[in-house]
């Protein structure tokens, strides 16, 4: 109802006929953009939706889209400081001229929350998709990007302390989830259970989460899902603008902030951001934890040595005209954080409590630090019916894990002075990645074709006195073609085919110390990895349909996905002493293959919206680290043999989202997720897969007053999260009891002089509940999750010019 009102009041849609601009392939749509007073507006972003064509209004407010095939279109006009305007167009047999009137957004300086309703992108994508923007991140701000997204049904995390976590999409994580940033695959050390994700959540624009396999578009590793982090929108209009974001958290005594500043001069865009966070040990509602039977008292309920620091910077510069856009981005993230001092992995550690408890903010041993540097260029060019995009990127990931030297296994009792490696540098991983993606989208009749190629080369080196993964380099090349066929206004078919080639060279590694190798043989330095080369070819496909009759959205997608085994799975033979595990790779592993069917059903009315998204997934050969019954007292130094193995796996589950606006500004929401996985073959036949999240339901009650002056954009909302008990486990996991937590969110706009500040408050785990999270890194040593945490964040946008 309100939409129609807005349309009537603010859109002046003037259709004038002219046969002048008649083109062979279509007709022109032109016009001017003004504000309500009639003043012309320059630099307004214009998106012709079904084509994906993007334009901007010129200095006199005029714009032009050429050669549009006769069809229905949705034109979106967007500009900072104004509400998005959408105009339905129908190109028939002549050119169209329109006038767009932009309504200023008084309070809503940022875009409107996308979580309401079902955006068009979602209706036209046959994969299961959730889209959130930075407002959502602000509202549910967690210790890391993934923690902030965890509320979405189907998303969970492997949390490592309070500042880091890695994504789990429908129970798939590690190298089975692709994180995309600036149009390129983010490459860190995804395989490690205690490694976080090197992404600055404050620099994220829109975030798309694809639940389910999407290899055809994103290549290997996208077998479980994709998190596509779009860059934040660069400021538009001839001005210099930015925002200051200040954050405080009570649980870990975190303080920090993020500042950005950017502008536009002529056709040039620029933006810079700096984020700095500093946090202490996080607190858990218990006075002591038990490492096996040994009681470890916690000083002031602080999880000893889990403090951390984060420092990130970003620079973006771009050029944009009517057809060409190129943005160069340089970013660096740095994170240093401690591990719980009393148990490193499963290994009990004696600590000097006096030293550790002196300060809750220092980072002692063991700890980890990661620096991730990323240089990307995103260029797009519009040429007739073609939209050509090229992304280039360089990434440098440098990770160090520090720990006191302990002579595990056959390692010498004292660390030799002759070693060039520092005695506290246990592991070091360095990765350099070069990537180039090229893509062309073009319209042929009702078909929108996308053809593209992806190439990547990465080089990995290792350091430190511990060994898990050999050095390796890897080249990948992929080609794909995707057709989106709009059969009718509400019926879209999708088809895609992709070919990938991967070559992996792993390099020899020999222990730096001698081990015993038999009863009557001399000790020798063991060969932990051999030189090897593997080549993999994969052909995958995907087919889908979207049918959107009236209030319904129906989507169905099926496809084949793949994942190339990683060097650790193929070549390693190292001892993970902290887990008492001797991890043996298997050089004969084939690429993982998976078949998946995804269904998405949505129904939305004025007050209701319901979405159900069940899926079924079959892996012919899921690769996992299988704990065997054996020990190895030579290569394994007496530890249990964990061997990479393949088994066929069936998984099914789904998510449910119901939203009901039951009275005026009051609404309620139910989010549910369920997952079941079972191995159908191999030595763990009948078992589930590791890191299976338990079923969960989230009940929400929200109050979003509108219409009353001063309260516009405010919200008060309470989440009641119920997690089920997880009894489906696989060695070496433990069953985890269910629990429930209450989280509160509130936000409002505050006028401060000439500025409007956005205030967001959260009370996470309001009742200070003590519980264990089944997929947390610290689950196996029974370390409870963080207690009550009050999060306060203040965001103040400003204009300098």
């Amino acid at each position: 109802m309100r939409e129609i009102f807005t349309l009537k009041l603010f859109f002046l849609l003037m259709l004038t006929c002219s046969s002048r601009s008649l083109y062979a392939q279509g007709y022109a749509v032109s016009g001017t953009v003004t504000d309500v007073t009639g003043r012309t507006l320059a630099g307004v972003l214009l998106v012709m939706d079904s084509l994906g064509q993007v334009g901007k209004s010129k200095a006199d407010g005029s714009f032009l889209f050429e050669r549009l095939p006769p069809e229905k279109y949705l034109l979106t006009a967007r500009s900072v400081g104004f509400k998005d305007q959408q105009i339905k167009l129908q190109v028939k047999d002549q050119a169209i001229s329109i006038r767009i009137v932009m309504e200023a957004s008084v309070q809503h300086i940022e875009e409107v929350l996308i979580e309401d309703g079902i955006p068009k992108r979602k209706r036209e994508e046959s994969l299961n998709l959730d889209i959130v923007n930075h407002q959502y991140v602000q509202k549910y701000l967690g210790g890391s990007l993934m923690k902030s997204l965890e509320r979405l049904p189907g998303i969970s995390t492997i949390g490592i302390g309070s500042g880091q976590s890695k994504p789990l999409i429908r129970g798939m994580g590690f190298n089975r989830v692709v994180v995309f940033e600036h149009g390129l695959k983010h490459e860190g050390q995804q395989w490690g259970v205690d490694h976080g994700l090197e992404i600055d959540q404050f620099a994220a624009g829109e975030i798309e989460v694809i639940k389910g396999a999407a290899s055809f578009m994103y290549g290997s590793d996208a077998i479980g899902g994709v998190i596509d982090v779009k860059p934040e929108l660069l400021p538009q209009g001839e001005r210099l603008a930015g925002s200051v974001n200040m954050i405080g958290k009570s649980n870990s005594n975190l303080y920090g902030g993020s500042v950005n500043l950017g502008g536009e001069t002529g056709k040039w865009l620029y933006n810079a951001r700096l984020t700095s966070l500093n946090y202490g040990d996080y607190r858990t509602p218990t006075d002591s934890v038990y490492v096996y039977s040994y009681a470890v008292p916690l000083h002031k309920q602080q999880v000893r040595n889990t403090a951390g620091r984060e420092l990130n910077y970003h620079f973006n510069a771009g050029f944009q005209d009517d057809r060409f856009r190129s943005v160069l981005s340089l970013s660096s993230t740095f994170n240093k954080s401690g591990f719980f001092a009393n148990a490193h992995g499963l290994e009990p550690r004696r600590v000097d409590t006096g030293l550790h408890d002196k300060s809750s903010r220092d980072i002692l041993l063991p700890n980890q630090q990661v620096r991730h540097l990323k240089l990307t260029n995103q260029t797009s060019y519009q040429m007739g019916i073609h939209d050509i995009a090229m992304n280039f990127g360089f990434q440098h990931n440098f990770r160090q894990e520090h720990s006191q030297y302990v002579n595990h296994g056959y390692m010498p009792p004292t660390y030799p002075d002759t070693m060039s490696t520092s005695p506290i540098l246990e592991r070091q991983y360095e990765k350099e990645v070069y990537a180039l993606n090229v893509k062309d989208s073009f319209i042929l009749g009702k078909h929108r074709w996308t053809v593209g190629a992806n190439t990547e080369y990465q080089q990995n080196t290792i350091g430190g006195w511990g060994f898990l993964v050999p050095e390796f380099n890897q080249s990948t090349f992929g080609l794909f073609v995707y057709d989106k066929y709009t059969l009718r206004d509400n019926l879209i078919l999708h088809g895609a085919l992709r070919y990938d080639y991967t070559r992996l060279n792993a390099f020899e590694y020999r222990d730096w110390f001698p081990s015993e190798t038999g009863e009557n043989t001399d000790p020798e330095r063991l060969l932990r990895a051999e030189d090897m080369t593997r080549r993999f070819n994969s052909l995958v496909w995907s087919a889908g349909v979207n049918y959107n009759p009236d209030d319904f959205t129906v989507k169905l997608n099926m496809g084949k996905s793949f994942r190339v085994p990683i060097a650790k799975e193929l070549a390693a033979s190292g001892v993970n002493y902290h887990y008492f595990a001797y991890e043996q790779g298997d050089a004969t592993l084939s690429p993982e293959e998976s078949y998946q069917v995804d269904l998405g059903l949505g129904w939305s009315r004025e007050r209701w919206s319901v979405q159900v998204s069940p899926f079924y997934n079959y892996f012919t050969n899921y690769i996992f680290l299988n704990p065997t019954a054996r020990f190895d007292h030579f290569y394994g130094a007496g530890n249990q043999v964990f061997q990479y193995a393949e088994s066929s796996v069936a998984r099914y589950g789904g998510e449910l989202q119901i939203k009901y606006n039951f009275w005026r500004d009051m609404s309620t929401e139910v989010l549910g997720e369920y997952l079941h996985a079972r191995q159908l073959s191999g030595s763990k036949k009948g078992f589930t897969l590791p890191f299976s999240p338990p079923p969960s339901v989230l009940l929400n009650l929200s109050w979003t007053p509108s219409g009353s002056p001063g309260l516009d954009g405010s919200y008060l909302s309470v989440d009641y999260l119920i997690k089920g008990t997880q009894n489906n486990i696989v060695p070496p996991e433990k069953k985890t009891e269910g629990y429930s937590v209450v989280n509160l969110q509130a936000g409002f706009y505050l006028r401060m002089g000439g500025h409007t500040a956005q205030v967001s408050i959260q009370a996470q785990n309001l009742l200070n509940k003590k519980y264990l999270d089944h997929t947390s890194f610290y689950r196996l040593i029974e370390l409870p999750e963080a207690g009550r945490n009050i999060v306060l964040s203040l965001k103040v946008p400003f204009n300098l010019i």
Partner: protein
Amino acid sequence: MKLKTANLSVKGNAFFGFFAIILLLFGACSKDAETIDDEPPVIDISAADAFPVQCSTVKRGETFTFKAKLSDNVRLGAVSVDIHHNFDHHTHSTEVNDCGLEPVKVPVNPFLFIKSYAIAGAQTIYETDIQIDVPADVDPGDYHFMIMVTDEEGWSAMRGLSIKIV
């Protein structure tokens, strides 16, 4: 009017149709009759003749017998023994108490014993009877005696005992 009603009922049918499909999807796959073994094995050192236990002492130049009762609900896999020094106090035992540590010292010739033994046959209870020689020339002091046991499914249990070599 007639048209409108028809339209509504189509919508209603479609709506319930969706849920029917979902129920079918879930129903078709939820046949988990198979039971799996999710119990780890147990290391029992509570018997009177169990050795070593927390704070036991062994002598250099002598042989002692490692005696513990291992059990599993289905079938035991293997047992591993690891004796290493704790002169630097880096780690502690898995047990409730410690046994009064000697001052930190630099190891010269610490005793190191790493060995594993497969448990043959389909046994659910196994009593270890393993002879361990402690050489006369090793450093005396605080040691850890680690026992690890697996069952055939790959579940494991661990005890890390503090012992002294004198």
